[in-house]
């Protein structure tokens, strides 16, 4: 009888040990939702960055002894579809964390869902700031840039360049009628006011995204007799705008502030037709010489034989942030990961970065300069390096922005 009991106990023990070992090796699942097939300028570079980080981390032994696995799904830039995919990833594939590179509206929808269902997520491509402020979600961290910081850097650069020429001017805006556009314009108004520019906002055009009627819109804007044009168009709308603006002499003697067009993702499409002298945020990656970045660029080159782009770095950072958060939390428990996001330190090609405790926003360096064409290729010239951390509102300002939304409810 004893023998039987002993055998059972031993078998039981073996099974238990086996189960624990399995658990230890069981991969950590990361659900990736990104706009792979629509307006996908950032999606492919992002995906390369994600894969590269996962490969490197797994080669080095994984996280908590467990390998990382990424399940990639195409959101089609459709918020409803993205939420459905998030539901599926959570309830069917049991993912531990989400990583996301998408249009701001889609990211907001996934964030709202993730908040309700307590799923940690890391955002890699939505610069609209409502994600971290107005519609804040504690389970979310953003390793991407902040639109507010980009606009702040762009306006500071414009002030450096033009000085008093920027004061008491007529400003117009042309931006897509999506979260991205509205959020950038709000930041621009706030920042221009904070610098005492006394900007007179005389005209606004909000074409539906991807449906810009460039010629007619420019004629309408021309009627407002602007001195400064603020635009955050991108993709096909940007191409149409650039071509029509040139033909219709729209940009002559005007200051154009266009954060976001100078990233290689958007720049490269314009090629030799890139307009010159627009103030924009860019990524002059062949001129950045810090050892850690050069090393990263070489590894990327070997892995993908493709030119490095902005979102390759951000995607890479995203996975590094997830790995660091799980290590810090010591488990994949959502609550612990949420807490780990506060002030998290994680490695990036630009050195160690951290997530701010107040809004889980990363502080990265970025570059603002003038758009230019050299040898038929677009280039960012005359650039200055800024840091996201130095270009965000004060903590009180952020709390006020969060407060606003509560009152609106």
């Amino acid at each position, binding site marked *: 009888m004893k023998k039987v009991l002993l055998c059972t106990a031993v078998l039981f023990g073996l099974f238990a040990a086996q189960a624990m070992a399995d658990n230890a090796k069981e991969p950590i699942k990361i659900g990736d939702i990104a706009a792979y*097939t*629509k307006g*996908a*300028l950032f*999606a*492919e570079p992002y995906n390369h960055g994600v894969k590269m980080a996962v490969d490197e981390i797994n080669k080095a032994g994984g996280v908590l002894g467990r390998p990382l696995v990424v399940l990639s*799904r*195409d959101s089609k830039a*459709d*918020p*409803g579809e993205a*939420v*459905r995919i998030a*539901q*599926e990833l959570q*309830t*069917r594939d049991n993912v531990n964390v989400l990583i996301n590179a998408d*249009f701001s*509206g889609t990211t907001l*929808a996934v964030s*709202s*869902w993730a*908040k*309700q269902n307590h799923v940690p997520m890391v955002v890699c491509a939505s610069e609209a700031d409502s994600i971290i402020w107005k*519609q804040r979600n504690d389970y979310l961290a953003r390793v991407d840039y902040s639109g507010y910081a980009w606009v702040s850097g762009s306006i500071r650069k414009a002030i450096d360049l033009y000085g008093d020429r920027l004061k008491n001017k007529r400003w117009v805006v042309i931006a897509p*009628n*999506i*979260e991205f556009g*509205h959020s950038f314009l709000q930041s621009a108004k706030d920042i221009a006011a904070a610098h005492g520019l006394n900007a007179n906002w005389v005209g*606004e*055009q*909000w*074409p*539906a*995204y*991807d*449906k810009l*009627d*460039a*010629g*007619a*819109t420019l*004629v*309408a804007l*021309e*009627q407002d007799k602007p001195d400064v044009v603020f635009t955050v168009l991108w*993709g*096909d709308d940007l*191409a*149409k705008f650039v*071509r*029509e603006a040139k*033909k*219709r*002499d729209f940009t002559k003697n005007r200051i154009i502030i266009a954060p976001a067009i100078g990233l290689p993702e958007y720049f490269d*499409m*314009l*090629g030799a*037709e890139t307009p010159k002298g627009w103030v924009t945020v860019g990524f002059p990656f062949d001129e950045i010489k810090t050892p850690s970045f050069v090393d990263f660029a070489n590894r990327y080159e070997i892995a993908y034989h493709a030119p490095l782009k902005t979102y390759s770095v951000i995607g890479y950072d995203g996975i590094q942030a997830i790995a660091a958060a799980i290590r810090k939390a010591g488990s994949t428990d959502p609550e612990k990961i949420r807490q780990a996001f506060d002030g998290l330190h994680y490695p990036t090609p630009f050195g160690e970065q951290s997530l701010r405790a107040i809004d889980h926003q990363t502080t990265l360096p970025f570059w603002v300069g003038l758009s230019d064409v050299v040898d038929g290729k677009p280039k960012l010239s005359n650039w200055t390096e800024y840091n996201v951390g130095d270009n965000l509102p004060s903590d009180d300002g952020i709390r006020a922005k969060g407060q606003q939304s509560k009152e609106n*409810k």
Partner: protein
Amino acid sequence: MSFLFIQLLTGLSTAAVLFLVASGLSLIFGVTRILNFAHGSLYMLGAYIAYTLTQFLGGAGMNFWLSLLLASVGTGIIGAGIEMLILRRVYHVPELFQLLATFAVVLIVQDVTLHTWGPEDLLGPQAPGLAGSITLLGKPFPSYDLFLIGFALVVLAGLYLLLHKTHFGILVRAATEDREMVANLGTNQKWLFTAVFALGSLLAGLGGALQLPRESVSLTMDMSMIIDAFVVVVIGGMGSLRGAALASVIVGVTQAFGILIFPQITLVLLFLIMAVVLVFKPYGLFGSVEDMTVEKAQISNGAMKPPAPRLKYVWIVAGICLLALPWLVGTYGLVLASEMIILALFAASLHFIMGPGGLGVFGHALYFGLGAYAVALLTKYFAVAMPLALIAAPIAAVLGALVFGWFCVRSQGIYLAMLTFAFAQMIWAVAFQWYDVTGGDNGLLGIWPPEWASNPTAFYYFVLALSGASIFILRHMIFSPYGYALRAVRDQTKRAEAIGLNARKLQWMGLGLAGAFAGLAGGLFVYSKGSVFPTTLDIHTTLDAFVMTLIGGLNSLSGPIVGSVVYTWLKSEISRQTELWRLALGLIILSIVIFFPQGIVGSFNQWVRKRKGEIG
């Protein structure tokens, strides 16, 4: 004032490209009676092929124009291929199935294009010699735009001569007026159809290729163009060349001036014009009632009998399975099942108006979306609780259905489809552009069911109870005196009116009823996702309902239910298994349209009856 002149020219240059695409669409419709959804895809293909050719041949000098020419001819050949391979097999099916078949082509072309050219936007070269601008009344105006206006006029003249001075043109016009007579007179219809389709495709390809110097080539070109082209063709009158020309000008110029005057509602304006024209001229500016005398679409045929009593047991077993589902499947299964049930209600409401109601509506997303937005707006701005919001959803939808339906039931056939489509697009445009209230593209977020219904099992039962009861009511309505009257109107309108039935009123009520249940489904849908977006109102939602109803089969009550289960499951599984989900879905829809036009349930019933020897 010179800027007004410049703006007019800008509008005309938009109209030029619109005309090229729309005239092809109109020609094809005139002869084949097929409303070709894939026309936008051909336009997109024209642009992509032209891009590749300019890269290959070099975009300078004559090679640029040669590329454009070759691209349009190439698109024409592709069009002919599509006609011979696919459309020839669907000329005999009801027109809404044809629409579905061409939509399947849209899906297939999207995937083929994506995998051939990649997801990134491509910027082609400028037109040699026309990259600059000329000065008109002291303002610069792009010379290429001026060229486009002139070119469109040349094409218009060319088409006019082709239609009026050549043998081919006479055949085309004859076929547009009476294609059976043309066939009886010994013309080989097959090749006439192919030739017209090729010509129309060539024009679409040309329109796409000519966009190269104006915008980048992207994967969204197809849908944005086809919707505009639909609007133009419907305003001008289907099958009318001068209608297409005039309507292009109206649309192009209104767009241009709309931006000056109402920059916020440019999209609404477009569909508003279409709706206004259709209300006053139900067949468009130059369309004629005769166009409608072609075989009235037999959407649904045969009398629908109450199911055999034995079938009751099937329903009881199904009911028990549904009740036991939480013990049979995991959380994901429940989430998916809830979605299937909500969509089944949506499809059942469409089935009610299309099957027994006999109205080929093509904008059912309108009621779904109205219900959804009613719930979301009430929750967001007035913090209304779920039960109350779910009562408001069908009310909002009914109101919409009654207002829009009043106009719709005066129309019929493809014009009815297009009028319902115009209303749906109009409300979509409002939701999309009214950023301050509806959140625009972002939608409204964070609308979750209260605590007691928030876990997946509770929500599943809640959805099951509400949708189940609603579907039961719909079923009951079909076999009520009202349902019989509705079907009488569908099958024999004149006779039904002769015995004192008010046809329009009956159909109007039918639309209201269908709208109410679609609205309820929309409201439930919001709670299942926690959010609402303009996509609930757009053409894809309409198409989803449409596909679910048709693949299930229109002649049976269980059709929409089976259809929604199969379609929802297929969609989620296919997009999980393969990147080529559009291609797969397109092929499935095509095979259903071609091989099982009765739908799954219809085909199954036929098979059963055949086995029993009831039919040969």
